[in-house]
């Protein structure tokens, strides 16, 4: 009944508070505007690059703070955003295609804190500005494509095994095969079951028909593959957009979250993320008349296309090379004419075909068809339906000037910008399935700044009001609760920083709410102590049993709030998650500070001596 903590307990609590202070500190130092340079395609980040960058900036008389070499990238800090933007433009121009130059905000944490692994919280998009996209992979299309492939494989297999069939058609989500005789059907079934273990083959002897469906495992496999391929492609594309610290994550079974901090030009980002483009190289049909095709009688073996400026052109149906045979594509300038160009590299299969066709057709025109798939959402009879739009246009017709092999170039593009975008789309590869932007949230830099200031101000004001009230109402005990409340905030921020959690506006509201509710535990304890005093107990005994009795109540009340917070968390879309994270951590830190820290302080003040009266 001495109201004294053993030494180890005091030491432990003080230690926790000190560690909390240290890890919360980095958040006070703010951030430097910075430019981040990362290498592309095997370029190196070495000392010579540091010297080169330093020289470029010195000559342009742009002030800078430091140039740091970090693992695989260069970080240049600037005194203000003006210098940062100027430097970024200049470096982009001077370093060319070998490096990606991106704007970044680099935390200016002092060295001794960095050595301890202390980092500030990461600011969310709504506080720093940037874009958040939610993309959806069109799984129906992915499964469709897979079925197409199986259909042609089945035909080929039946031919190889000399099994006669009447027809192989698609019927919804299955491939239907018709036969002339029972014998053929049985043979086909045996062959297909041996060769296509991923398919479920069902015979219908009456109708002399087999249906082949994707097995569940195969369907799952296709979905996962489509998603994985899209993730990889998006990562490549985003890397080339030149964004510092992008986030690209899977969400659920068919969605991908892309977050691009600091990106202002969302138009370009959308075009690059949302479109799936591929190329086809086809020979131009020079034998037939375009006019006849325009009347609706295209010749056999040819198809009518239009160029970008709307002129009709006939191309041969046979595709020479498709986009997925393209290994690499980069933009630059044609050596002879100086016009924008795209340099294309093919894989061995593509190169072989290209070599054969170009050798046979020297002097003839070849066209590059650019195919873009877009998905538009429409509502039909109150139901949301997706419509896939396929836009095909001839972007370039060039005369074959010699035998192409693995590498060749395409010229005749409108601008460097277009050349760059086209190269980018090609390099990232053809997507397995079209993707569609289903959600976008963009926050401009001015709003981000406003949000931070407002959030900060409301935390400070709310906090001060609560502190003042507690000190006035509970006197000395109130001051003790205030100290605990301060440390509660410190610990909360320290834990969020250690977890490298992203601080968002809803997160800040969570902090504000935590501050308001954190005093609750102390109010419960102090009211109990008052009650005990009124009941005629001695001050020391009142403190003891006040803490003792309040504990169970605090525990129960907080657990239920924690349940609500966890449900919020599992519900887990962005803003709600941020709010839930801060709320849950806040509940735990406030339990620690309100019960243990206040008790320690009160023990220091009153413990182990005769007390006549409590200032409560």
């Amino acid at each position, binding site marked *: 009944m001495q109201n004294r903590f053993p030494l180890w307990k005091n030491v432990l609590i003080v230690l926790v508070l000190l560690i909390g202070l240290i890890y919360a500190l980095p958040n006070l130092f703010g951030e430097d505007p910075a430019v981040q340079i990362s290498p592309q395609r095997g370029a190196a980040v070495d000392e010579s690059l540091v010297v080169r960058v330093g020289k470029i900036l010195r000559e342009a008389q742009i002030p800078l703070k430091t140039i740091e070499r970090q693992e695989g990238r260069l970080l240049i800090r600037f005194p203000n955003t003006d210098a940062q933007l100027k430097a970024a433009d200049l470096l982009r121009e001077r370093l060319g295609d070998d490096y990606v130059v991106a704007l970044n905000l680099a935390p200016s944490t002092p060295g001794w804190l960095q050595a301890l692994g202390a980092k500030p919280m990461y600011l969310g998009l709504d506080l720093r500005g940037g874009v958040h996209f939610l993309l959806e992979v069109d799984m129906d299309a992915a499964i469709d494509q897979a079925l197409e492939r199986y259909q042609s494989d089945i035909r080929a297999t039946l031919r190889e095994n000399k099994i006669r069939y009447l027809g192989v058609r698609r019927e919804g989500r299955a491939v239907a095969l018709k036969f002339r005789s029972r014998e053929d059907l049985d043979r086909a079934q045996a062959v297909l079951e041996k060769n296509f273990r991923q398919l479920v083959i069902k015979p219908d002897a009456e109708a002399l028909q087999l249906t082949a469906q994707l097995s569940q495992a195969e369907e799952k496999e296709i979905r996962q593959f489509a998603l994985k391929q899209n993730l990889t492609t998006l990562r490549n594309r985003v890397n080339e957009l030149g964004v510092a610290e992008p986030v690209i994550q899977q969400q659920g079974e068919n969605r991908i979250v892309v977050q691009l901090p600091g990106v202002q030009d969302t138009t370009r980002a959308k075009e690059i993320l949302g479109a799936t483009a591929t190329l086809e190289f086809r020979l131009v049909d020079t034998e037939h008349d375009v006019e006849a095709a325009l009347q609706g009688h295209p010749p056999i073996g040819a198809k009518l296309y239009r160029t970008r400026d709307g002129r009709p052109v006939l191309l041969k149906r046979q595709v020479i090379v498709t986009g997925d045979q393209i290994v690499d594509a980069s933009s630059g300038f044609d050596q002879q004419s100086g016009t924008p160009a795209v340099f294309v590299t093919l894989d061995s299969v593509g190169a072989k075909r290209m070599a054969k066709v170009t050798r046979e057709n020297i002097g003839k025109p070849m066209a590059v068809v650019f195919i873009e798939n877009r998905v538009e959402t429409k509502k039909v009879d109150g139901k949301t339906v997706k419509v896939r739009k396929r836009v095909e246009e001839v972007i370039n017709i060039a005369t074959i000037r010699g035998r192409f092999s693995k590498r060749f170039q395409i010229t005749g593009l409108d601008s460097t910008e277009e050349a760059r975008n086209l190269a980018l789309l090609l390099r990232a590869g053809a997507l397995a399935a079209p993707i569609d*932007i*289903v959600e976008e949230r963009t926050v*401009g830099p001015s709003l981000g700044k406003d949000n931070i200031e407002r959030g900060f101000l409301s935390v400070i004001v709310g906090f001060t009001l609560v502190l003042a009230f507690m000190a006035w109402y509970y006197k000395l005990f109130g001051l003790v609760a205030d100290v605990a409340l301060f440390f509660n905030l410190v610990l909360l921020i320290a834990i969020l920083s250690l977890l490298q959690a992203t601080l968002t506006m809803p997160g800040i509201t969570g902090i504000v*709410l935590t501050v308001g*509710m954190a005093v609750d535990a102390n109010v419960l304890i102090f009211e109990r102590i008052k009650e005990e005093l*009124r009941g005629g107990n001695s001050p020391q005994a009142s403190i003891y049993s006040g803490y003792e009795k309040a504990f169970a109540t605090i525990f*129960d009340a907080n657990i*239920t709030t924690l349940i609500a917070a966890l449900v919020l968390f599992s519900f887990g879309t962005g803003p709600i998650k941020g709010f839930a994270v801060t709320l849950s951590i806040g509940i735990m830190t406030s339990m620690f500070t309100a019960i243990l820290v206040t008790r320690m302080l009160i023990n220091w003040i009153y413990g182990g001596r005769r007390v006549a009266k409590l200032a409560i």
Partner: protein
Amino acid sequence: MAAHLSERNFDFMGKRRIALTLSTLLILISLGSLIFQGLKLGLDFTGGTLVEVGYDRPVDLAKVRHLLAGHGFEEAAVQHFGSSREILIRLPATPDLSSADLSNRIMEVLRSDPEARPQLRRVEFVGPQVGEELTEKGGLAMLFALFGILIYVAWRFEYRFALGSIIALVHDVVITLGFFSITRLEFDLTVLAAILAVIGYSLNDTIVVFDRIRENFRRLRRGTPEEIINVSINQTLSRTLITSLTTLLVLIALLVLGGEIIRNFAIALTLGVVVGTYSSIYVASASLLLLKVQREDLLLPEKPESDADLL
């Protein structure tokens, strides 16, 4: 001032008829409004496009509307947001107007005015499907939270207490939703988060009162359930009011200083805290009496329930 609070002895339960009438009335009005006009669901749930634009000087709405209508955006709703220099443009999710490109086109149109220098502050685009899913998810989250709490309280206290706290919770949520339905304030994701936080808060309050009721049932040898509940509420009253007050202090700071984006969130929470405080005093405890809670129910957890009416 507050020192008197704890020595007072309000007859809360004697007034429970009045409280019950008031609560029933509020709930009926809320439900009526929710059924007949529903909530004004925000973009998060309905899908659509929203663009917030900042100018360097006050901007004339009529001019912007005219400009947008001239470029085929007759559907656009334009309003000032926060100050006369910021505007908010909303486009509903219509069948042929649902793509992430809309915001780009709107900015192009606004930039075509040679005198204005618009600056993009915020874009929110939500596809119709995402919205549909969210509505479903939100409802589910609410149910899960209620269910989890029900189980925990039933295990820690007794099933009547669990029912009582859920009744109080539903009461708070319905009235807060009703308020949003009547005032036509927009119900978006942040408001949903606020409602779930209200659930947590209201529960916290209720549990503290229930805790005391349980303690007094076990400690006091005399008194009807009604008297015991009254004593318990009086004992916890100062705590209930002080905690609500400190929470309201920070919420008012948020309301006044937090800006437009979290205004509705702050309104929902403020209302929730006020209603939650009232319900933890009247609704939750009165439900215990309605459910005929007895001292025997709490003496020993493993004792079978007795339906004997000792009143």
